[in-house]
């Protein structure tokens, strides 16, 4: 592979002061040269009017479907979808069938994804079959490649289990990832509790449930001295608690940065997600928390589901939307007045890796090329879904800002 990225603006903390544009020469997966006019000389060239280059993005909590739910997504299709979204790394949640809960499932993921353009860092389940009862073999899983533990889309309801999991990671290593929720308050809820839930006659998911869940998880992590990531926070009140616990990392789902519960007035099932879309005050607080670095990463919340589970009346439809292809373009399109591009990249690429304590790729001569190329000025329409599932609120929607391709593991995958 020989490639030159032409006249690129490099978006990276170490380059942010640099106003100039550079050519980047990549040979055999290594950044050979970064300079102002590199001779093309038989190289493949990627150019675009406003080419930007950053390190590849990283998603925590992607739902992949394989093993067992390949009709929704498999390792092949999620790789294509992730590339299209600008990702070169994902840490998938364990909600497959069987659940990723022992070294054999961890090895299954790692062995079947080696040398792809997207790196897979599996997250093992905290409890057997993600049922929230007995703890799994953390040490063995970490030895074989697990980087974190979570029951994924299932919140840990049992405080005792959460405590033991946090304690056990002191021996195994790995981060405990949990979406904070007080399940006994919220289990019948459909949408954020408020004026919209009342007027639609739908059971509410109270803001308070997230707050109580987060207070519990933070208290437990302090007692156990374990490493906690509060996954996909959605409320202003949760952010206020997070501020007092800087040792706890946090993520936010990109849909919560773009939509509120008022967007559900027409019963749009593809916006039925968990955590639910909240109110404008929450959305604004989430954006502000990203700017202030109180939230470390943006996730795609990618959850592929077959049509039979979504094409239903709202109350009976499943929670979840695909998002890995649209997360960055949507944020780039809609939030560029509030969030600098440099900050977006930090939250899409650096933050997630920091949460999991992974090495962060660098953009410098001699470094391995792990890159995402995009152009904030390109208009395009999301009409060719790479994911196997189509449950997206953005089908046939246009974005201003397009991912042009990714480079990783000596492979260059352009976004067609």
């Amino acid at each position, binding site marked *: 592979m020989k490639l030159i990225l032409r006249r690129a603006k490099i978006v990276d903390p170490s380059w942010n002061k640099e106003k100039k544009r550079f050519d980047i020469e990549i040979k055999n997966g290594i950044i050979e040269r970064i300079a102002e006019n590199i001779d093309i000389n038989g190289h493949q060239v990627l150019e675009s009017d406003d080419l930007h280059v950053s390190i590849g993005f990283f998603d925590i909590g992607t739902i992949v479907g394989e093993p067992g739910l390949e009709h929704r997504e498999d390792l092949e299709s999620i790789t294509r979808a992730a590339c299209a979204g600008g990702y070169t790394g994902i840490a998938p949640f364990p909600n497959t069938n069987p659940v990723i809960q022992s070294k054999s499932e961890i090895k299954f993921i790692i062995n079947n994804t080696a040398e792809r353009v997207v790196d897979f860092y599996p997250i093992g389940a905290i409890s057997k079959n993600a049922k929230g009862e007995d703890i799994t073999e953390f040490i063995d899983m970490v030895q074989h490649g697990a980087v974190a533990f979570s029951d994924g889309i299932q919140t840990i309801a049992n405080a005792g289990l959460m405590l033991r999991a946090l304690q056990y990671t002191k021996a195994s290593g790995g981060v405990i990832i949990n979406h904070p929720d007080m399940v006994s308050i919220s289990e019948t809820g459909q949408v954020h509790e408020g004026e919209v839930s009342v007027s639609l006659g*739908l059971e509410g998911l*109270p803001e308070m449930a997230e707050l109580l869940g987060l207070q519990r998880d933070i208290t437990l992590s302090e007692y156990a001295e374990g490493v906690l990531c509060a996954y996909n926070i959605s409320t202003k009140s949760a952010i206020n608690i997070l501020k007092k616990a800087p040792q706890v990392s946090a993520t936010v789902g990109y849909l919560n940065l773009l939509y509120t519960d008022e967007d559900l007035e027409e019963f749009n099932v593809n916006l039925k997600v968990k955590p639910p879309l909240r109110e404008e005050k929450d959305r604004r607080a989430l954006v502000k928390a990203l700017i202030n670095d109180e939230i470390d990463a943006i996730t795609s919340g990618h959850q592929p589901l077959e049509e039979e589970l979504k094409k*239903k*009346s709202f*109350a*009976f439809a499943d929670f979840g939307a695909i998002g890995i292809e649209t997360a960055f373009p949507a944020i780039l399109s809609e939030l560029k007045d509030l969030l600098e591009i440099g900050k977006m990249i930090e939250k899409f690429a650096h933050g997630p890796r920091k949460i999991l304590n992974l090495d962060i790729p660098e953009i410098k001569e001699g470094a391995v090329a792990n890159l995402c190329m995009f152009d904030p000025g390109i208009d395009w329409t999301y009409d060719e879904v790479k994911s196997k599932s189509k449950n997206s609120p953005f089908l046939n929607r246009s974005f201003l800002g397009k991912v042009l391709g990714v480079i990783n593991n000596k492979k260059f995958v352009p976004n067609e």
Partner: protein
Amino acid sequence: MAETKELSSKHILGIKNLKPEDLHLIFKTAKNFKEVINRPIKKVPSLRDVTIANLFFENSTRTRISFELAEKRLSADVVNFSAGSSSVKKGETLLDTVNNILSMKVDMVVMRHPAPGACAFLAQNIEANIINAGDGTHEHPTQALLDAYSMMEVIPQLKGKNVLICGDIKHSRVALSNIFCLTKLGANVKVCGPPTLIPKYISKLGVSVEYNMRKALEWADIANVLRIQLERQDIRYIPSLREYAQYYGIDKTLLNSLNKPVVIMHPGPINRGVEISSDVADSDQSIILQQVENGVAVRMAVLYLLAAKRK
């Protein structure tokens, strides 16, 4: 109020999406039909050659009969489909139903379904006009229309009048549609019931809340008493019907002890002796049977106006 001759919407999915002009048009049309159904020959040819499917995915007697009667009085062709709630496990059949309706070339669909949003789902997927006959805990628009119409027969100008809705507000589509309808008409609306059966944010819809039934009735000109819906509760929100009847039930002694008359309404079916005693239900203060009669006229009006919009 600006007069209008056409509804603003091709469906009746809920009162929330209707304009006050729509409501007045429906009431005016219903008045004409009420006169029609009291004639010796009750049938008019307005909906000849219009096919209406009544899809009831939840048990219903009076709403289904009321719609069917309204349709037949308008000379529509009617097909009925009923399925008990138990057979609509998680609503899988709704999408297939949609496709069947499409194939049968039905013009209008009247649907009751246990899922909030089911009628909106149907409207997004088929061409026919949809009338919501109750979708879970969301809305039951024709009930609210006939309730308001019946209230206006007793108190013609609802603006500024005090209307109380009492009972299980949390699980009631009737309450929600009534709130939207009455606030659009300018009435003051209060809800009363046990705190566990009143949604926390209900006041955002412009209503006030009272937990004491006597105080609520002292305030009210009209009380719309809802059935206590134990069938829609997976969780025990109240300790017992006995306690409910004692502290929230309306009986003659309570009504007589107020220093003014209160009009009593109930959408049915009544749990006699629970939310309302027999002597109240059958008293002169009660307009429960007028509600039933007006139901046919109001539903005729809605069907007629939607059909007119097709042309």
